[in-house]
């Protein structure tokens, strides 16, 4: 859920766009990170760990800890807490370490 009224802050969210989480459309804004937009849509499980397949969410939200790795437009290990939403972007839960594609 997004905060509509705040005693101190105004939020400049940018333009509304649609991106895809595991193939399903999600609304986001261009000034939001993927993690924030997913969070606003109630999505907090971003991937699963490589060995025990435990669910993974964000932890630091400033690009430091690697807990929020997802696959974005085919690229694995994207830190979605510091990557902004783009229209039509395809964001997928990452299972394990991710595979780097070499074209």
């Amino acid at each position, binding site marked *: 859920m*997004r905060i509509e009224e705040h005693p101190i802050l105004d939020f400049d969210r940018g333009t509304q766009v649609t991106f895809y989480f595991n193939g399903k459309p999600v609304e986001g804004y261009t000034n939001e990170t993927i993690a924030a937009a997913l969070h606003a849509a109630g999505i907090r*499980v971003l991937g699963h760990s490589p060995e025990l397949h435990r*669910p*993974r*969410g964000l*932890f630091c939200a400033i690009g430091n800890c690697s807990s929020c790795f997802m696959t974005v437009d085919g690229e694995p290990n994207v830190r979605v807490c510091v990557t902004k939403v783009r229209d039509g972007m395809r964001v997928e839960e990452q299972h394990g370490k991710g595979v780097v594609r070499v074209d």
Partner: protein
Amino acid sequence: MIKDTEILVIGAGPAGLAAASAAAFLGASVLICERDDAPGGQLVKQTHKFFGSEKQYAGDRGIYIGRRLTGAVRENPQIELMTNATVLGIYDDGIVTVLHDNRHLKIRPQKTIVATGAAEKFLAFPGNDLPGIYGAGAVQTLMNVAGVRPAERVLMVGAGNIGLIVTYQLLQAGVQVAGVIEAAPKIGGYLVHASKIRRAGVPILTRHTVCEAFGTDQLEGVRICRLDDQGQKIPGSEETVACDTLCLAVGLTPLTELCWQAGCEMAWIRELSGHVPIVDENLETSVPGLYAAGDVSGIEEASSAMVEGRLAGLAAAGSLGYRPEQAKEEILAARAELAELRSGPTGGKIMAGLARMREAGKTKGGVFVC
């Protein structure tokens, strides 16, 4: 291609921004590399008013202080600010490598100021990896930068200033806070912050810790328990708190990877919250021309980070020969300001830590462990 600069500042938080402005003020040209896509560091989410003295903008909210520091840097033609620029390594031949917008850059600075800040500490307990367990800074980023409600109901761990302030900010954002738990026998943060959240009806439970977190796919609740005088869990004192977010405000630790990699002599100093580079009174490390300012040289506050940044900026520019007389004078003023900031009761801890760091510097060679 190698990009030359007189002074490279790594990090555009309070220390880095202040360092850049101070160095440019003396006449040096400065390049700032910032990992994030915007400058300001963690000031961008500090909606509370700062303490300290007028010189460090006390009474002003962190977000406005950040904008002021950023504005000064942007207006200064001597300073180039590069965002989305992650410094990767500092090498013996003086080259610093940077990942900038997915491209690899080489920079050759004459002096470098590391102002990389800090990372949040974590706690060990079963289930601590469940989605919904966030650092206090992450919760602040979600609600104060993105404007997204981070949770429905939060349990806060840590009654230091960060835990207390973030609790209040959660209430401002319309989030329920089940309580604040603190392992120590008393509240660590300022009374003014604690009183605000107590008035809002949030319980603060001292001598309490997390036993475990549970939930199928994400956090659904936390088991907490009481601690005895020795800090041991009291059997039978467990309680269950239903919450969808557990917020950890259990301290910060210096983000020193670049200092280690550059070969700085390091020491583990409890009072400074981790390993820190050994620095002299101008904040120069054991690697000549490499300075460390702000939380990276010991966890303190944004106000002292700004003064440390200024000091390092002045010292770096002064050592390049820019306005030596003025540099000297300003350096003394910055040191006096730091001493004043550290004269209070919490400053005593920092002073003790710095004394141990200096002592460690004298013993030389290897890592000093306390």
